[in-house]
């Protein structure tokens, strides 16, 4: 990866995270850190605990053990909407858009934490509220331009094809202007062309806005190309962590992907 980004200090650190659901262990003693401005990938076979890891980071799940430290602040139980206020945004493996709303409204919802006027102003839709709506609309229009979805901005998302929905979901996350963006299999189910588009968007986001990105991916090939660093999970344990080339050569990783018995 080339670029003029300066990979900075660690902004997110997970220490010894363990998570289980009624006796089933999803994550065991995992420690990962993410540095500012980098693109970090978490990979692993199905059921390795990748999504659980993202869910821990943005507060959907609360681990039984271990700590998450974000920007020097250690937390244990934090609701997702609170992590959102700290500047963490994400997308989902199975698209989780607001199906009844238009593309524009979906993306505008991404601005939720940045808008301040109370509901009485909103009921008036006048003065400060109108000004606020328009300011944020402008931000969203920039996101729409960036993702090249101008022509569908008024379309209900339910009517869009899969690939575009994924793009809108990315747009919704970007509208929040996050410092840390979590992407859960952003390229799952896409064809080669769509995958290339998505890669470009991810890199551009990282490049232009300096957003730190943590992404989960199944497809090793893509990941290796765009990531600065890769962590590999298998059966809820971390088996490797490092630059792509290094991880690619790691014997444990190869075994895990080939399904060698442990």
């Amino acid at each position, binding site marked *: 990866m080339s670029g003029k980004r300066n990979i900075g200090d660690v902004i997110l650190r997970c220490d010894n995270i363990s998570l289980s659901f009624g006796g089933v262990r999803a994550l065991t003693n995992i420690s990962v850190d993410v540095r500012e401005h980098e693109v970090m990938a978490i990979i692993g076979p199905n059921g390795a605990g990748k999504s659980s890891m993202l869910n821990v980071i*943005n507060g*959907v799940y609360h681990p039984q053990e271990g700590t998450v430290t974000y920007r020097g602040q250690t937390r244990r139980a934090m*609701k*997702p*909407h609170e992590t*959102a*206020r700290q500047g963490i*945004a*994400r997308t*989902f493996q199975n698209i*989780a*858009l*607001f*199906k*009844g*709303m238009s593309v524009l*409204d979906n993306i*505008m*919802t*991404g*601005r*939720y*934490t940045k*808008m301040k*006027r109370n*509901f009485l102003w*909103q*009921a*008036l*839709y006048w003065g400060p*509220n*109108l000004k606020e*709506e*328009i300011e944020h*609309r*402008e931000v969203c*229009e920039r996101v729409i331009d960036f993702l090249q979805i101008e022509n569908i901005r008024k379309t209900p998302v339910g009517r869009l094809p899969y690939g575009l929905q994924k793009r809108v979901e990315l747009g*919704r*996350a970007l509208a*929040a202007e996050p410092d840390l963006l979590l992407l859960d299999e952003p390229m799952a189910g896409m064809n080669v062309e769509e995958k290339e588009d998505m890669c470009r968007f991810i890199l551009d986001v990282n490049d232009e806005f300096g957003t730190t990105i943590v992404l989960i991916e199944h497809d090793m090939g893509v990941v290796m190309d765009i990531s600065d660093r890769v962590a590999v999970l298998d059966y809820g344990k971390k088996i490797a962590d490092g630059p792509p080339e290094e991880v690619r050569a790691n014997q444990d990783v190869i075994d895990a992907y080939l399904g060698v018995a442990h």
Partner: protein
Amino acid sequence: MLYREAGQFKTSYQKDQAIFPIRQDRIAVWALLLAVFIAVPLLADDYWLGSIITPLLVLSLAAIGLNILTGYAGQLSLGTAGFMAVGAFAAYNLNIRVPELPLIVDFLLAGVFAAMVGMVFGLPSLRIKGFYLAVATLAAQFFIEWVFTHVGWFTNYSSSGVISAPPMHILGMTIDTAVEKYLLTLSVVAVLALGAKNMVRSRIGRSWMAVRDKDISAEVIGVPLLSTKLSAFGISSFYCGVAGALWTYCYLGTVEPAAFDLNRSFQVLFMIIIGGVGSILGSFLGAGFIVLLPILLNNIAAMIGHGTLQADTMANLEHIIFGGLIIFFLIVEPHGLARLWQIAKEKLRLWPFPY
């Protein structure tokens, strides 16, 4: 005049964000407002104004309230009439206990009380979802009805538990004819409907829809679930509460708690199903449909003439047709009359060309 938007370019986001972006729509809306504020009072007789249009407007307001909660925020509620009752009894008590307050303030405070009660009953919504929540809102319905039947203070210790709206005065004017009551109702409903429309196209409305469509991703974006659901319960109940006050003051005049029974809740629910779940316009269309249909069927029965069999059959036929239409609508157009209206408009936009 043709219904075309060709040549109307939006040059700013402000114009694009306007409530009616198409010019013909704006003209139509102004014409409609003129009609309802001036032409209707001049043309309609007391029967139409007092016993059809006024209750229709009041129920539209309640339907907007329910639509905010069920249509926009996705929380199914069967307690609408209960929240209407809170508004009705709050307005009455404010009116007789604090006579200094202007009537409109009574109405608004009645809404606020209803909102507070609504939020209390909305608290379980964080843990309870779907049908479980719907049944739980029945607890609100029955409990509120019971409180007003049994706590004498709320009815000013009237022996039969009935309250009777005192005469209405606004700025020294007495409101007692059908036209005056209609205009008062219309003004309140028009202002609140506009407010609702504005809210649902603002941040709060988006947060409601986000919670409705996918609560988990709403939360991940930063929409706090509990306070968003509570705001929906509160604002929805506010609308229902004001509707309850209007129902008492501008329509029935005298009510007992049973005027706000479960059947009323269902009636309002039907309005939003038929009118359109998640549509402010649909609330009006649905209320119109539900209020007018039985009267229409009844009139047909009266035209056919009397005779036991026909009358009995017609009365039951009313139920059958009513139930049948609800099913029919759900099958043919689950989005209700509001969607039909939209389709008609789109057709008109292209007319006379088929595509």
